Structure formats: structure tokens, C-alpha cells
């Protein structure tokens, strides 16, 4: 296998799918001539031309709606939000149209569309531009929600998303775009199915469930804890809807303890959902209450020192693992 950056893995997924299926097109702000605000779409305009790589004005409600309409009549749009914060002005299109039309037309009309872009905090972009949006979308039946942590999952899941006949929310990360990781060699096609959690690190003492940017924080914490003799098993759900609890429950039954680490706010959302299911499905196996390490329950501060504290930290993960392990 070779190493690719997360952004390169995403680009390859789009490129391969656009080559494979001419109904696939990319639309969004700066995706074409500027080569992508974060260079995810670099080179795609040159390869596929203005008909399939479309720059839009700053009008999310408009181009999200155009995308949904295009999907309804048979195309397979990829709609890039420059960040997921801007999806809020297109919220009605996504929730009321994309997620509903298939059901409201009694299955007659499909909406095969992917909405993608960076999610969560970047670095000092302030409270309005730092939202971790998974809770807003993962609670909506009619949507798929992917949040890949690694380049390999990013590529494999995006290809699956583009081929999906239903709307997909695809959450990336500005600070993840530069992350390097193994991706199958050119010519080796890998589609990662929705609803397949992955055990990222094997361990026996505590289960950590995590995804997105905090995945790397949790992995670092797990390494440090291993030095003290506590082996954490890290499970990455990869898709938040559908949510594959199988490997998570299996792991908790083994370790008897669980810490869920995520970037979004603590109130509700996929993090709380996972905790709820763990306590129900592994009740008789829990030796301690399930804990969470989350983004703190505040609008993101601009100050860097505060931002670093609001996002899940390695120290908070280690403390939580020790608490559920009743360790000093």
C-alpha cells in the first residue's frame, strides 16, 4: 500500500467515480478555478471541464437545492460546502427535501446526492465557523452520515457515498486534510460499506469509541496508557448513521468499560446515542459508568489556549480511562 494524504484520498475517490460514471458531477464554492478551498478538488476542472466541475456563487441554499433537483432527475451530484457551518443556510433543503423526497414520493423518486466538506473546528476560526455538525444530521432518518477518520476510510466511504441511491452527509475535517495514511494501491478498488465499525487498535482493558479528529487524540492517549500497562481497544464507527454497534458491544463485553470520545457538544447526538446503546446492550458487562470526552458545552472561543481546552484533549481521555478503570 501507498501513503496518501486525506485530501488526496478524497480527490482520488471523486476522480475515479467521475471517470466511472458520467452522471457524477461536483458543485460548490471555489471547487473549480481555485482548485478547491482546501485543494480537495485540485485538477478536477482541468480533467472534466466546466460542465462537471461547477463553481457557484456564495448561495448554499441555492446550489444545495439545484443539486437535489439534479439528483431527482437522475444525476449524481457531489455538493461541496466550503465548510459544514455554511450548510445551515441550506438546512431546509437537506432536511425537508433531500431526506424526505424518497419517502414522500412513495419510493418513486430517489435522491442520490453527496454533501461533503470540512466539519468541526479548524484553528482559531471562531464560534460560528467551528461547528461539529454530526448531531444536527445524524438524528435525521433518510440521511446517511459518514465521518471518516483516516485517508483509507475517506476514500472508500466517499466512493460508497457517491454510489449510494440516498442522500449522504459526508463530514471531513480541515485539520484532517493533511493527515497521511495507507490507502490501497492504484487500480485496487476498495468500497467501504456503511455501518461497519472498525477496530483501530486492539486492547483488553478499556474500549474507546471515537471518530473524526479526536480519533488521533484517542490513539495518542491509548499509546501513552499502554506505557502504564492499560491496553485500550479503539473502535471507530466510521458511519454515524447507520451506526454499527456490533464491534463496540463485543469490545465492551471484553473490557467491561467504555469511554466515548468525540468533537461535538455533549448534549445528545451520536456520542450520547452510543452511550445509550452500550448501557442497554452491555449492561451486565459494565464495571463502571460509561464516560464521554467531548467538545465542551460552549460556543468555540477564539483564543487558541481556550480552543485547545474546549476540544477533547489527550489528558482528558487518559483521565476518563483511568476513572472507568478505577485506577489512580
Amino acid at each position, binding site marked *: 500500500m501507498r501513503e496518501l494524504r486525506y485530501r488526496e484520498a478524497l480527490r482520488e475517490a471523486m476522480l475515479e467515480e467521475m471517470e466511472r460514471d458520467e452522471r457524477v458531477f461536483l458543485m460548490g464554492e471555489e471547487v473549480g478555478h481555485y482548485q478547491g478551498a482546501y485543494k480537495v478538488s485540485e485538477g478536477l476542472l482541468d480533467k472534466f471541464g466546466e460542465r462537471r466541475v461547477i463553481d457557484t456563487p456564495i448561495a448554499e441554499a441555492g446550489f444545495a437545492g439545484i443539486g437535489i433537483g439534479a439528483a431527482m432527475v437522475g444525476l449524481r451530484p457531489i455538493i461541496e460546502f466550503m465548510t459544514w457551518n455554511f450548510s445551515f443556510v441550506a438546512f431546509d433543503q437537506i432536511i425537508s427535501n433531500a431526506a424526505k423526497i424518497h419517502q414522500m414520493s412513495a419510493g418513486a423518486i430517489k435522491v442520490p446526492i453527496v454533501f461533503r466538506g470540512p466539519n468541526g473546528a479548524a484553528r482559531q476560526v471562531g464560534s460560528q465557523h467551528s461547528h461539529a455538525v454530526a448531531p444536527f444530521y445524524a438524528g435525521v432518518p433518510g440521511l446517511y452520515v459518514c465521518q471518516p477518520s483516516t485517508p483509507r476510510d475517506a476514500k472508500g466511504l466517499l466512493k460508497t457515498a457517491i454510489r449510494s441511491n440516498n442522500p449522504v452527509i459526508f463530514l471531513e475535517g480541515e485539520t484532517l486534510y493533511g493527515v497521511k495514511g495507507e490507502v490501497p494501491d492504484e487500480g485496487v478498488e476498495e468500497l467501504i460499506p456503511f455501518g461497519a465499525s472498525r477496530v483501530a487498535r486492539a486492547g483488553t482493558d478499556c474500549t474507546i469509541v471515537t471518530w473524526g479528529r479526536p480519533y488521533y487524540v484517542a490513539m495518542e492517549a491509548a499509546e501513552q496508557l499502554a506505557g502504564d500497562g492499560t491496553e485500550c481497544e479503539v473502535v471507530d464507527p466510521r458511519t454515524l448513521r447507520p451506526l454499527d454497534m456490533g464491534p463496540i458491544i463485543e469490545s465492551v463485553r471484553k473490557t*467491561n468499560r467504555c469511554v466515548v470520545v468525540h468533537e461535538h457538544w455533549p448534549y445528545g447526538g451520536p456520542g450520547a446515542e452510543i452511550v445509550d446503546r452500550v448501557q442497554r446492550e452491555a*449492561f*451486565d*458487562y*459494565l*464495571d*463502571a459508568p460509561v464516560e464521554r470526552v467531548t467538545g465542551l458545552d460552549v460556543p468555540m472561543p477564539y483564543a487558541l489556549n481556550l480552543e485547545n481546552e474546549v476540544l477533547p484533549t489527550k489528558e482528558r481521555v487518559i483521565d476518563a480511562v483511568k476513572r472507568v478503570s*478505577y485506577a489512580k
Partner: protein
Amino acid sequence: MAKIIGLPKLSPTMEEGTLVSWAKKEGDTVDVDDLLAEVETDKATMEFRSFDRGVLLKILVPEGVTLEAEVPVAIIGKEGEDITELLAQVASAGSASAPKSASAPEPASAAGSQPAPESPAVSAPDSPVAPAPEPAPGGNGGRVISSPLVRRLARERSIDLRAVQGSGPHGRIVKRDIESYAGPVAVPSRVSGERLPPEVRQATSMRRTIARKLTESKQTIPHYYLTIDCDIGPLSDARAAINSELEADGKKVSLNDLLIKAAAVALRRVPGVNASWVGKEIHYHQVVDISVAVAVEDGLMTPVIRDADRKGIAEIAEEVRDLASRARDRKLSVEEMTNGTFSISNLGMYGIEEFAAVINPPEAAILAVGTVREEPVVEGGQVVPGRRLRFTMSCDHRVVDGAVGAQYMAALKRIIESPLNMLL
């Protein structure tokens, strides 16, 4: 004004109940209809809800204790109210359920820690596991705090958690505590001349019901027993023939299903056995409803095949299978296991040749079925191979005299040895 709360009768037949768990702790406010505790009765686990409003001032009995109805279990009153008088009242009522901290002395026991054995109210007070030390409430109002995992492990390993020291927050017993617990699970070595203390287990509600009913049966019903030996060959052949007929439908009947039918038909012919002693009357039943004894974990149940004399054998077989499997899962309704008119108990599958069963009141008789024996028999002066089965009927002499019982056994033998008889 504070008042003593007694254990309510939660079902018409409830005589005693096990206080499974408290839903409130001392100091909690209680409103009318609030759940106070869960109580296991002879029938089911029921909710014990409050008729009073106030503060739960005192819990008088710990979880897991079995009590007669109306025995004091708690005191409810206003916050901070003085309840020493009520506590003394509870203690002097001779109930060992009063907490050990109660200052009033036990009337019949000088030692104090030893409950009066004749105590009418509490049948299993204090620590149920003999070698377990006194529970250490640790400020949790006597409630044992432990993780769900620990509760499961304790169940599996029969560990009394009250004896385990918790190292987690608020004294919570966690995995490592139970793993390092060497407690009474290990079998201690025997010092010569000394008798090891037994492992004491609380009897379940079902066991108590069995104990009560069967003791009552043996003590009040004058049992006598009739044994008859039958040639089971014809019925075994009939069974094989029926099963080959049923094979296409994927169905099967057992010898026991045929015996239920045979016993039911015989009851129609000798109806004097299908009766009950009720006070000064004898009730002769119009229906033939056969109770079938089914062994379940830690006890037995007797689901009833209604109108067994009028049902086809395949129908009986299906019903028995369904009832027995639901009996093992404890899914039978009360209606499905009461009001039989005659019982059958079969221990043939264990190789038992014959036995005498205890009558299941208010029925007047129970038929005990032994195993099929292959042995030489003398037929027309010749020794030939035979298949034999012995039945023993226990009869209530108040209802069934020897001659009537014997007529029944003869009728049964005729049917068993000539199964076509069932069709008559």
C-alpha cells in the same frame, strides 16, 4: 404522625412475600402511589406502592427477606419525627425483622444476634450465607452498591455481595473486588470432629409453595397406594403406528401422551376417581382435566390438559409440548396450571420402576408412571419376551375407596393392553 407500614397482601392467595428490592431509601420523600418496593409472591413479582404520603423514616427489613403479609417493613412519617416508640413497638411484636440497631431487646433471644427460631414473621432473617460476615452498610442504607458486571458475576458464582468489600466510589463493588474476593466459595478444609457449616440458600417462592402444598397434602390427605403391572407392548406398537401416520406432518407423539389419553378415558369409565374432597362435600367433576407434572429448574409445575378424554392424541402431544416448554420458561399463566382434576407424574425416563407420588390437592388421585421394562414373562406356560410398565396410583381415601381405585386401575390396564379400547 409516623406509622408502621406492613407488607400488603398483593394477591388474594398471598400468604408471604419476598422483599426483592426497595425502590426508596431512608430519607426519601414518598407520595401516594409511589413505588416502595418489589415483592415476589407465590405468583409473580409485584409492585408494592405506598398508600401514604411523607418521608420514609426507617426501613425495617433488608432486601431478600421473606415475610408473612402484614409484617412491619417500614415506617413513614414527617421528616425528623421521633420514631423510637414505633421501633420499640415493632421489636416487642416479636419480629426479628427489626433492625439490629433497635435498642429494644429481642423477647425470646438473649444473644440478640440469633433470631428466635419460632419467630412467626420472618422465615429467613439476617445473613443467608452462613460464613458471610455481617453486612457493612457503609452509609448506603444497607444497600449493596456494585457494578452491573459484578452483580452478574456474583449471581454466576453464588457470591453474597454483602460480604465483599467495595473499593470503588461510594464503596461500589467493582470487578477487581470480586476477583480478589476469596470468600465462602472456596471449600474450607475439614478439621476433625467439626462439622462444616452448610451453604445456606434462600428458598425461592416456588419452593416455598411446593413445600407448603405438599406438606399440607401429606398431612391432611389419607394417602393409600395401588400398583398394577401392565403389558405395554400393544400401546408401544400403537405409538409406533401413530407416529408413522404422523410422519408426513412432521409430528410425533410420546408414550406419555398416549398414557395421558388412556388415563383420561379410564377416568370417564370410573368417574369416582375424578373427584375432590371439599369440606363436607365430595365434588364429582364433569370434566377430565389432567395435570401433568413437569420438572423445571429448582422445582416442578403442573400445567393442565383440559378435556384430555375428548382430545386426539396428536392434539394432546402438541399441547403437552407447548405447555412444558413454557413451564420451563416460567411463561405459564395461573389459569394454565390450576384446576386440574387428576394428575400424572412420569419418572420412567430416569429408569424408575415404580414410585408413589404425593397427591396434588384438591385432586383425589395421582398416577405415577414407571419405566418400560423388557423382561421375560410367562404366557400360556411359555417364557416369552415382554414389555412391562408399572403404574402406582396414590388415592385420597376420603374420596376414593380401595375398590373404586382398584376398578380404575383395572380399567386403565384394559385400555393400556388393548389400546383400541380408547375408541369405545
